[in-house]
């Protein structure tokens, strides 16, 4: 058995994984990051928009502070977040952004004097103070009181990821790519590392560590229509769920983005609307101000996505062979702006649609985008259930996003949480020794070898893993999408339970040798269906509407009964997750109130 040992093992080498890795390496610990793709291809690279931090340098950000950022974040979460964590986040965000600048991120900077910006499709001028010249600039994003989003044109994720990966290389972090963790090594009490499969050779290796971090990003690929990269299939979450003792938090909280392009579901940035893009219906009528007079296109993304769906249900969508969609109009921003400030958007439209956004409308529809749920951790990033296991970034439910996260807050979370949790992991590494039990390592390895042998031999059946996945897609898109109701969710849960049975009977058509992609899929499909069941079952039980979770049959946000976080664990051999609940927050810096957009009634806490 091949065994590799380190102090900290980061599963995932996107922004969160690498930021944590750098913190530990900086403190003298040995660190290995495992990544299923070269680190710089992580989905973090695809984030175009930016990172929220209350620097308040720009004219439209004047008067901003962590307190205002805090209020926006809690409101955005629909009071579903842990307020202690939101506070930690907003206070640390400016430091993290400045640190990124120090390490080399070419943030856009304040240019003094009169500047032309756009709001609601109309140009206006603002005066940037000469004394702020050259400080980090910020742009507008939905759901915020101030312009707060730090950015580098529309390649923010790319630039920050490259900078962090450079820094990781400099600090001697070992990034091993094309490797996938397929199981955690644990004894029901302590996590000791992972069993990982090499995606170049198929070889299994046991990576042993004092601390293990899950930073594998979102699980959007349990939906057919998703803006997520194809690698975002919940691999890290599956290894946590499979332990039977680590709960996943708020899995029913799934965010849809208003502007996935049709038909490929590639995301065009919220920056389009921030910069003044508008949404039009089949009559090329701008409808958002009718629904949201104040914020219009800049209401939070769950609100905009639902309003779009509502509008299309009235028959005002644009018919197409791929179903109805709406139009995003950025033509009025002009060629200079689109070709430079929104260049990625321009490229996406030209390359994947054959549409020139300077002259033509962009077909868009709401598309699965972000998973608020994930491995439930405490404020230090430590997972519930297993000592030595941590999580950060989208794979975690840390939980500053509650039931809806704001644009620019997730990308910021990766580096801010990475900084904070990295610090806590350093304390953990300094303060404890992990005893590695060889029996646990051998058991975990034997179990995975047996799984692979069974799949190759079709021991449990010969269901095609791709067919099973497609059945899951059909079921969850229909039952647990943007609008939900009891009847459809019940059907969805029943269907997914049947699909889970099929997932347990998959077998390979090929020999499974080397980097075999069929085996990769087969090893994962049962876990993916389990994640889908956590979403659908959690959504069925949560009889209220909060943030991105919208029940047509329970339109009120019910603080009396549901100011809670769902915790889903999976007992060995079970067909459904076990759901438990904990209070959404123990600290109320801001009592529950109205979000100020989105409408909807609230049943108060003591109502």
């Amino acid at each position, binding site marked *: 058995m091949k065994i590799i040992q380190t102090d900290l093992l980061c599963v995932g080498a996107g922004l969160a994984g690498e930021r944590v890795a750098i913190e530990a390496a900086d403190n003298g610990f040995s660190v290995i990051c495992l990544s299923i*793709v*070269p*680190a*710089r*291809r*992580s*989905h973090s*690279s*695809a984030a175009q928009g930016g990172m929220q931090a209350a620097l308040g340098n720009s004219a439209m950000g004047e008067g901003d502070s962590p307190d205002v950022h805090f209020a926006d974040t809690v409101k955005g979460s629909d009071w579903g977040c842990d307020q202690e964590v939101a506070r930690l986040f907003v206070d640390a965000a400016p*430091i993290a952004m*400045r640190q990124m*600048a*120090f*390490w*080399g991120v*070419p943030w*856009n*900077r*304040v*240019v003094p004097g009169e500047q032309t910006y756009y709001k609601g499709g109309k140009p206006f001028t603002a005066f940037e103070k000469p004394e702020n*010249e*050259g*400080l*980090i*600039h910020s742009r507008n994003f939905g759901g915020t009181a101030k312009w707060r989003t730090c950015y*580098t044109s529309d*390649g923010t994720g*790319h*630039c920050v990821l*490259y900078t962090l990966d*450079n*820094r990781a*290389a400099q600090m001697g972090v070992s*990034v091993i*790519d*094309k490797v996938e963790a397929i199981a955690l090594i644990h004894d029901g009490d302590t996590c000791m590392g992972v069993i990982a499969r090499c*995606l*170049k*050779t*198929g070889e299994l290796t046991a990576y042993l560590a004092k601390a293990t971090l899950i930073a594998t990003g979102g699980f959007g690929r349990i939906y057919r229509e998703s803006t997520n*990269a*194809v690698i975002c299939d919940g691999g890290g979450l599956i290894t946590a769920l499979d332990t039977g003792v680590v709960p996943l938090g708020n899995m029913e909280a799934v965010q849809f983005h208003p502007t996935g392009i049709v*038909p*490929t579901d*590639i*995301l065009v940035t919220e920056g389009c609307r921030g910069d003044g893009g508008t949404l039009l219906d089949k009559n090329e009528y701008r409808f958002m101000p009718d629904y949201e007079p104040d914020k219009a296109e800049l209401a939070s993304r769950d609100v905009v996505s639902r309003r779009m769906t509502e509008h299309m249900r009235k028959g005002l969508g644009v018919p197409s*062979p791929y179903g109805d969609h709406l139009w995003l109009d950025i033509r009025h921003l002009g060629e200079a702006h689109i070709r430079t400030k929104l260049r*990625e958007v321009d*490229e*996406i439209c030209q390359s*994947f649609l*054959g549409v020139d956004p300077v002259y033509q409308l962009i077909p868009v529809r709401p598309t699965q985008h972000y998973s608020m749920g994930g491995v439930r951790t405490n404020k230090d990033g430590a997972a519930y259930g297993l000592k030595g296991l941590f999580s950060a970034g989208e794979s975690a439910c840390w939980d500053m996003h509650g039931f809806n996260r704001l644009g620019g807050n997730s990308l910021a979370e990766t580096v801010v949480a990475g900084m904070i949790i990295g610090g806590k992991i350093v304390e953990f590494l300094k303060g404890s020794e992990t005893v590695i039990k060889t029996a646990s390592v051998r058991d975990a390895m034997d179990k995975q070898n047996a799984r692979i042998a069974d799949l190759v031999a079709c021991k449990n059946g010969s269901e095609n893993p791709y067919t099973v996945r497609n059945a899951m897609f059909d079921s969850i898109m229909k039952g647990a999408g943007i609008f939900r109701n009891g009847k459809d969710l019940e059907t969805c849960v029943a269907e997914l339970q049947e699909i889970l049975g099929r997932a347990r009977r998959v077998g*390979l058509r*090929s*020999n499974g*040798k*080397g*980097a075999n*992609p*069929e085996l990769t899929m087969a090893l994962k499909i049962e876990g993916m269906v389990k994640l889908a069941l956590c979403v659908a079952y959690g959504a069925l039980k949560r009889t209220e509407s909060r943030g991105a979770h919208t029940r047509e049959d329970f339109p009120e946000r019910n603080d009396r009964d549901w100011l809670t976080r769902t915790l889903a664990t999976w007992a060995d051999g079970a067909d459904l997750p076990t759901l438990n609940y904990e209070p959404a927050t123990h600290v109320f810096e801001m009592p529950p109130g109205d979000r100020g957009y989105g409408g909807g009634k609230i049943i108060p806490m003591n109502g």
Partner: protein
Amino acid sequence: MGRTLTFNIFRYNPSDPASSPHMDKFTLDETERMTLFIALNRIREEIDPTLMFDFCCRAGICGACAMVINGRPGLACHTKTKEMPAEITLMPLPVFKLVGDLSVDTGTWFRGMYQKVESWVHTDKKFDPKAQEERMDNALAEQIYELDRCIECGCCVGACGTALMREDFLGAVALNRLARFILDPRDQRTEKDYFDIVGTDEGIFGCMGLLACEDVCPKQIPLQEQLGKLRRKMALAAVKNILPKFLKKDF
């Protein structure tokens, strides 16, 4: 539409002793707005589950899906079939180590590259979490971003005559990376430091000027311009290095 597409695809699984390099033929009915991303996934899911290829973002941002498409390196996610003839030949990128079929190991190559050029900001300053950020001119930040846009897809390396002939050639991607740091005032390296990295045949003087790198760059990064600038700068640095000290001044 209505065409039947034929795909000739390179096949070889180095981990399987029974496998030997050969070409396989697959046919698919073309659909509206079909890209190679859609086509390859359909082949794998409907015809041959063993077909190895890489996609990640499928949106032209991450660079994972570079391959040789009808003789030319490019991103498969970007490639619309309607712009291609009905017969499409797909090969893995050369230079990089083959993982299997169309999948190559770019990670190891690029890691070697950025260790060699020390692709990070070199500074003796310490970050002060209490201090305001150091200022930068916005136009300069945008210039740095221009060069920072490289997605390390490997197309320029796969298309490079020198890289094909000598393993140690750093390629346009490395020279562009270095140009990015030369531009960045946060990086305190001197001209001589840069010269030590690229002032050789492995670097700036190995380029034969075939220009293919820039032709195939999916991000349209002005690679040749950077190369030209760098070469002039390094040639001057080389001259300066042999001049007596009292004659040296800033060129």
